[in-house]
Structure formats: structure tokens, C-alpha cells
């Protein structure tokens, strides 16, 4: 089985492949289960490359992303997932929030 890779110019981000997750539920679970220092390190690494990542992804139609670009795209969705943890809450979960495990996503 071939190893999951990112497009060549983004291989430095391959250390974050654990965040390449397809659904919101998976990304949310991973955020809640991660230590804040790991979340922050992922956030900073991604944010530093987004000016290149988004234009790269924008050359493809959403439904026609090649495998390596699709994994890079999932990393951007995980950046969206962790953004409030870093930018608003300073912790993985919503401060004084409702139990997110009981707030069940009925979409993918």
C-alpha cells in the first residue's frame, strides 16, 4: 500500500498527517483528544504555509482533488477546526462549553 503523501512542495507538513481527517466528527474528536501544545504547533505550522496552500488547492475543483492535494485540503479543514482552540479559548475545548460529545453532527 502506498504511503500517504502530500504534494511535493508541502512535504514539510507531512509530520501533521494525523490531522488529515475527512469528517468534522473526526477532526473535532482529534482536537478534543490532543494536547494544547500539539494543537498550537499544528496551527502555527499550517498558518505559516496557508498563503501557498490555498492558491495551490484553488487550481483544482473540489470534487476532483488528486489524492495528495486532498490530504492537504483535509489539513486546512483541521486548521479551521483548531482555530478557535488557539485563537479564542486557549484550550482544546470550548471554555465553559456544553459537552461537545453530546452535540451530534448529523452531516459528514
Amino acid at each position, binding site marked *: 500500500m502506498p504511503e500517504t503523501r502530500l504534494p511535493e512542495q508541502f512535504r514539510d507538513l507531512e509530520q501533521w498527517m494525523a490531522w488529515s481527517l475527512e469528517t*468534522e466528527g473526526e477532526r473535532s474528536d482529534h482536537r478534543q483528544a490532543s494536547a494544547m501544545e500539539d494543537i498550537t504547533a499544528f496551527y502555527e505550522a499550517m*498558518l505559516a504555509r*496557508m498563503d501557498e496552500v*490555498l492558491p495551490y*488547492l*484553488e487550481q*483544482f*475543483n*473540489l*470534487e476532483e*482533488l488528486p489524492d495528495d*492535494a486532498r490530504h492537504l*485540503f483535509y489539513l*486546512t*479543514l483541521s*486548521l*479551521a*477546526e483548531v*482555530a*478557535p482552540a488557539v*485563537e*479564542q*479559548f486557549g484550550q482544546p475545548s*470550548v*471554555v*465553559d*462549553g*456544553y459537552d*461537545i460529545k*453530546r*452535540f*451530534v*453532527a*448529523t*452531516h459528514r
Partner: protein
Amino acid sequence: MSATPNGTLANGNGSAGGYKWHNKYPHLGTGPVPADVFTSQEQFELERERIFKKVWLNVGRVERIPNPGDYFVQDLAVCNTSVIVVRGKDGAVRAFHNMCSHRGNKIAWDQGGTCQNFTCKFHGWSYGLDGRLKFVPDEESFFDLKKETLGMTPVAVDVWEGFIFVNVDPNPTETLPEYLGDLATGLKGYPFGEFSTTSTSWTSEVNANWKVIKDAFQEVYHIAFLHKRSIPDSFTSKNNPYAHSLDVTLYPRHGSMSLFGSADYKPSPVAKLAAQHGEIVIRSDFSMDGLPAGVNPLRSEAWSLDLNVIFPAFFVDVSQGSYFTHQFMPIGVDKTLWTSTQYYTQATTPGRRFSQEYGNVMFRDIIMEDGRTFEETQSVLSSGAKKEFYLHDEEILIRHSHHVIDKMLKGQPVDAAFAANGKEAASHA
């Protein structure tokens, strides 16, 4: 709720205009809300019989059943029933009580799908998409069975802007357009269909009275406090530190509130990226071209979004480029099914989808802050320590909502309470 004398204007409320919303709708008074309306089983049973079994309730959108044979099931515990909503071979949307005519078994046990017939799992009685009883196994052994009278029991159903509503009253006293009234008129032309090609939805069974949850979403006085981390500067500003709303319109039962949005809002790094690729709620470059009259009714430059509270418990909150809904379906006096849904135009590019995901996550995390209050509040409501609660002028949608509920439970008419311009009718005084 007992009638109380109007408050004196001498004290003011800190805003330049004094009691702005009270002055617009003085007949609602200024009195407190009794605490027991959130905990009384007797009150809940009256709400069931006189409100939920009598009015139009949203059960979903048409995008969920695009083709003939597509159906979904909506359990309506508060109406003591479950409803099947199905698109027929003729393209019409129909609704039926989800109950077999034989011995009452629930026909569809799933949440939805596509089918040619509805067949009861108990004894195999089979119904067409139009509700007609088509087949009874071993029919010859029944006695005088009149199949033509034994279809699934229909439920009144109608569609407004793609939103499917049902009314379990066998003889509804008003049509859906009559029920929605001027609120629907004001939203006519908002691109609900275009914005509903994709959606994200969450649901949770909350141990709280439906009004505890509803009330939390129909005021913005809490924003500066409960949401101080998530949205510290979006809905408040130096000149409007308490998120005073731009406008309020009350209808006989429904209510709308147009919300302030701050031009001083400083987007975070990821919010900035998201804004470059799609729609976010707070933005400075929105266009008022093509907005229906009922959206941002004051045509304010400092607008963020409008709350539209469709009685009893369905919110259609619209902004520029997207909208979201909340629905609070009671299960019991202290148990409610909470559903929130964010709607978007289907993204075709990765950048737009990233932008939507950010909006999605922020929306979810913000309402997680709201959500924490529901059970914390309910958990102490039954203590009896507080007999009543006090409402701020900006909490007028709550005041109005309790006023309408009180009238309906007493069997008093609510329709005559306002003229179309929101002024109190003379007969009410």
C-alpha cells in the same frame, strides 16, 4: 404571566432612547416572568394541547426529499406522535401519522430513505406513498375490512420557502401563509433555496425546558459576557458595549430582531483567511442590493444578522450569504431535542469549502457556549428559590414570547394584539 404596570421611564436603561423596545410595544408591560413556567408539568401539558397540537411546526427542508419516494420521519413527542413526510409520485409533499391502521404500530422505524410503499413490520400491512392502504396479508380472514377508509392518517402539511411545516390539528384553524403572516412577507425573495444546497446540522437531547433554550437564543444581552471569548468584538463596540439591537418587530406570535455588527471587529488570522474565500457573518463589505425588505429592515451599515423567531420554537436567522436555523422540539417538561443547522451554497472550490468549515466550527463553538447555560439553569429552577425573573428591555422577544404563550394557554386570542405596523390594537387596552 400576570399583568403589571408599565415601568417609569425616568430611570432610563443606559441607552440614549430610554426604554426603546418597551416604548414601541408598551402593552407587554415590564413585569417579571414567573419561574414555574419552566418547570410546571401542568403548564407543559397545556402547552402540548393548546400550542404544539394547534400550530404549524417546522419539520425540515425540501432538499431532504428531492425525489418521489423520498421520505423522512420526524418524531413529535410533544404532539404524542411521529410523522412521516414523503414526496409522492406526483411530486407533492405529504405527511402522515407514522402509525398503522391495524393495531397502531409505528410504521417507519428508521429516520428516512426512499421507498415505493410503507410496509408495517408487525403484520405486513402496506401503504402507498399517498397513504392509501394497498395490501393486507390474509385479508379474507378479517371482518368487514373497508380498506379505502384505513389509509395512514394524514397530517396537514405545507411548504414555505422550502421549509416543510406540519400541523397535527385535524382541522387547522389557519393556513401556513396565514400563520406566518407578515414575517414571511418580509423575507420574500431571500435566496433560501440557493443557500440550502448544503448544510451542516447538529442535534442534542438537552435536559432543559424548551423555553429555557429558546429564550437563550432570542436575546443578545448575553453576548458581552457568555461569548466574551468567542466573539469579543463582533456584536459589541465601544459605542454599543451591550450589543443593543438595531430593530425589533413583533408579530402576533412571531418576532424579529435585527442585530448590530461592529465595524471595529478585528478578524483572527484564520478568520481573515476564511473571509478571503467565502462568506462569514461579520463583514464590512456586504451589499444591501436585493435584500428583501424584512432583512436588515433599517438598511443599517452596522448590521450583522437578523433573528426571526417563528412561534413556537423555530428560528430562521439570516445574514448576507448564509443563514442558520435553530429548532427546539419538546420531549417533556425538562427534556428537549435541540437542533441547529447552518446552510450554505454548495462549495465547488477548496478555498470556499475551507471558508465554510471555519464558519461551521465557529458557529458550533459559539453555540456550545450558549448550550452550557441550558442544563445549568434547569438544574436549579425547581428549587423554588426564585419565584420570578426580570427582563431587560433588549429581552423583549422573551417578554413577547411568554406573553403569547400565556394568552394561548388561557384560550385568549393573540392575533388582534398588533396591527401590521407593530402598534398595539386599541381593543387590547
